[in-house]
């Protein structure tokens, strides 16, 4: 009798578990990279940005510049202004190049091109939004501090040997820009 009861208990537990497992859990994404970068960039963060930004933040002048700003925010957080414009300029250069897709979204979401797209960094909230937006607009307008670069990488962390074979155009902040 007791044994049978035990069995039933276990069965109930299992059924409950089965139900539980069907509930969609939101899986927390590990975010090691973000915290690492945040720590280094907090020093340059300007608390006054938010106030001056609040009215303009909701204004959007075409999704392309917004997307550009997102990539810059994700790829070049804590970089100098020039470095941020440069990341935007690489994307614009790719749009102009025949070897890459012809739209900003196409370039940004091309498989395996930007680590920030792969690991979801691109959806992170803005940090120092005013500066990032200015940088995005500057790149969108055609300023190109990279002198025509199509690639950029962090020389310290990149594992792709192929990138090292590309002629380096310039180094800005932690990024190396190459053609």
């Amino acid at each position, binding site marked *: 009798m007791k044994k049978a009861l035990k069995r039933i208990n*276990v069965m109930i*537990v299992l059924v409950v*578990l089965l139900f539980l497992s069907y509930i969609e859990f939101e899986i927390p994404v590990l975010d090691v990279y973000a915290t690492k970068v945040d720590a280094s960039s907090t020093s340059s963060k300007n608390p006054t940005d938010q106030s001056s930004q609040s009215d303009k933040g909701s204004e959007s*002048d075409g999704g392309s510049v917004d997307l550009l700003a997102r990539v810059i925010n994700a790829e070049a957080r804590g970089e100098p202004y*020039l470095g941020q414009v440069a990341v935007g300029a690489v994307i614009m250069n790719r749009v102009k190049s025949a070897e890459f897709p012809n739209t900003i979204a196409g370039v940004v979401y091309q498989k395996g091109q930007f680590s920030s797209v792969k690991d979801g960094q691109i959806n992170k909230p803005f940090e120092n939004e*005013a500066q990032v*937006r200015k940088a995005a607009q500057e790149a969108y307008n055609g300023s*190109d*501090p990279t002198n025509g670069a199509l690639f950029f990488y962090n020389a310290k962390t990149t594992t792709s040997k192929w990138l090292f074979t590309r002629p380096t155009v310039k180094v800005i902040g932690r990024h190396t820009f190459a053609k």
Partner: protein
Amino acid sequence: MLEKIEKNINNYKRKFDHRTWGILAYVMFGIALLYGMQMANMFKRQKQIVQDNYNKSMYELVNYVKNVEVLISKARITTTPVESSKTYADIWRQSNLAKENLASLPVDQNAMSNTSKFLAQVSDYSYSLMKQTISGDKVTDEQYKMLEEINNKSDEVASVLNDIYDDLNNGKVKWNEVENYGDKKLKEQEKEEGVLSNISKISKTFTDYEGLIYDGAFSNHITEVKPVMIENEKEVTVEEARKKAEEVLKNTKDDVQIEYIKEKGESKGNLDLYLFEAKYKNREETIDLEITKKGGLLSLFITDRDVKNKKKTEKECEEIGKEYLKKIGIENVKATYYLEIENMITINYAMVQDNITLYPDLIKVKIAMDDGEVCSVETTGYIFNHKERTDIKPEITIEEARNVLNKNIKVSEESVAIIPNESKKEVLTYEFKGRINDKDFIIYVNAKTGEEEQVLLIINTPGGTLTM
């Protein structure tokens, strides 16, 4: 008796322990198993969705390339303008779609760059042919020869893609392996086979085709463009370039105090440049400057700071920018457009020659609207395009050009301008700014042929204003 009870209790305790641990272990195991299975299933499903998408892109790519091949053959035998332009339009569309699908495959960028370039060039070549046939011009023998060439190439592309297509049909293509290529997880031998090597194979066959196409936005003469203005100038020394940098900074506003200007090396890219970094006294942000080696011209000067409020108007800034450009040696400019963002205004200036606006010769100046300090200047448009234009005589009168326009349009301003077309060739045009149905338009009418060259609708973006 007492012993018996004690024994019983102990026994019961032990039993209880066993039972709870047993159940607990069972439950834990159950949770782990179920969760694991669930995750595995989810992963499988997601993976399948992704793979299906890749497969779809691959199938479509193959189809589009095949279609392009067929259409090119067709284009060579069609003779009527309507039929030909339809065919070219189709080539244009299909090759564009092919390129889009290629870009969405998880293939190394490196391996497919030439294929992508080929598709882009086919696409805009057929676009320019389409425009040509629509305007009534016959396709020349030379252009036919070019089509022949493209046809041969797309033959090759199609045949390689066909191999991949077969692999795909046989279920041999494993996209995750292809994706891992970048991670260097595959053995050398594995890299030699499969989709990836097939796609790189296509790229390898392109070496002899480089530089064949002369029309369209992606043609080689555009992508490897030379800076017209300074091409024949001689190189300046670092010291001269530094002097130029100083001049550039000195004039950004009244009483500028430069703390230092230091060399940051050189850069070889579209332009050969000397790089400088500078800093003002009492300012934290550094300034970056690029001076061309040839001719020692300012190519880019860029800095940023917070601008809290707006004290200058757009008009005042326009004047400041003009004055500034004059001081650094650029005269005869006209503001064409400005854009405000974060209390900074970016003004686009175009060069002017004999009252003709030269839109390709573009200079951008960014000014802080609080004290009118010049914060950025970018002159690549100017450096790459500026020269004394010689062919500036319109062949039709402005009245004739006006007759081309839609009758309902109310023209508010008109002038002569040189604009670049898609293949970056310069076109002399009459520029009309007007209004129709509450929408502002700018219409460019070719001053030689009297055709509408470009119609622009002015969309008022926040902060952006067109000045003419």
